[in-house]
């Protein structure tokens, strides 16, 4: 059985899905920043991601071209790229969580050490 021929046209429904997804993501990210639920550092990352999706929706030839290079169906390429993006993102988050928990631990230890010292200072007669 021979492989299905690689399509050269992009389904309009897929295109619409990409456009809606990217605009929705952009809107949510901007609103999160506005309400300061999201730090600018992470917002930029998500805005870049949603902008890339938007570009793919506007110019589907980008996807068609890349999928041809790897001999993928274009929908496979979309999933592979999204998967890799999420993989890197989750790894980066794990690293920052590790750093944060180390800092939290050190802070908790300092709080305990300082409280003990403070209690001793307070109990000393003037």
């Amino acid at each position, binding site marked *: 059985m021979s492989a299905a021929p690689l399509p050269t046209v992009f389904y309009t429904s897929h295109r619409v899905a990409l456009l809606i997804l990217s605009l929705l993501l952009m809107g949510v990210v901007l609103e999160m920043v506005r309400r300061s639920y999201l730090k600018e550092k992470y917002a930029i990352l998500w805005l870049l991601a949603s902008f890339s999706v938007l570009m793919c929706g506007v110019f589907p030839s980008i996807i068609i071209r890349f999928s041809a290079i790897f001999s993928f169906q274009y929908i496979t390429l979309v999933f592979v790229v999204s998967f890799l993006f999420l993989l890197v993102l989750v790894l980066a988050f794990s690293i920052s969580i590790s750093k944060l928990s180390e800092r939290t631990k050190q802070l*908790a*230890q300092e709080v305990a050490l300082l409280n003990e010292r403070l209690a001793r200072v307070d109990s000393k007669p003037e």
Partner: protein
Amino acid sequence: MQKTSEIASSTPRVLVIVPAYNESETIRPVLEEVRRAAPGYDLLVVDDGSTDDTAKVVETVAGVILLRLPFNLGIGGCMQTGYKYALRHDYDIAVQCDADGQHPAEHLGALVARVVDGSADAVIGSRYVANSDYIPSLGRRLGKSLLSRWIDYWVGGGITDTTSGFRAFNRKAMALAAQDYPEDYPEPEMIVILHKHGLKAVEIPVSMRPRQGGTTSIFPHRAAYYMIKVFLAVFIDVFRRYK
């Protein structure tokens, strides 16, 4: 035998660190026993965010220093707080002693003596060397013997009771622990870290009692999972890049 670092003053300042997480049932007799057996040592309890009355009970024992962590850090972060205290308050020796009554205070002097004579940076009280009358279950013995061989294979040192939490550190070992103390399985991992930094750890026989109350943090049905994780943790410690 090469001397590591001899304690200069004739009477070393010793701090006994007792990590405690929900040990209100057992901690008072432990503290009183240490008081009786070693009246010259200072006594520090690090309360690891207990949800019971541990801190209240400790406050009723006179002269005990109490550090209260704002939330539970686990045994690693808890002990490290104690080592930081010992380092900052210029103690010569810090001894870890569990709050559940497993570690008879009568052995404190022997642990400290081996550090004082300068023949080791860390002294571990072992249940398995001769003279010890502690008999654990077969499964536990097998697991611990495998772990001991695993650590010995990578870093040497021949420590048989690698999970013993009854140990004395000199200032070098204390400084290392204050800076970089493992969080997950601190007892076996710390042996590796000591060796990786060229510090000497030895063990001496001690008798241990079954825990006097509370619950162990290692449940039997999780033992296999514990073994896999601790083997991996030790392996990572062997190859970690240290600052």
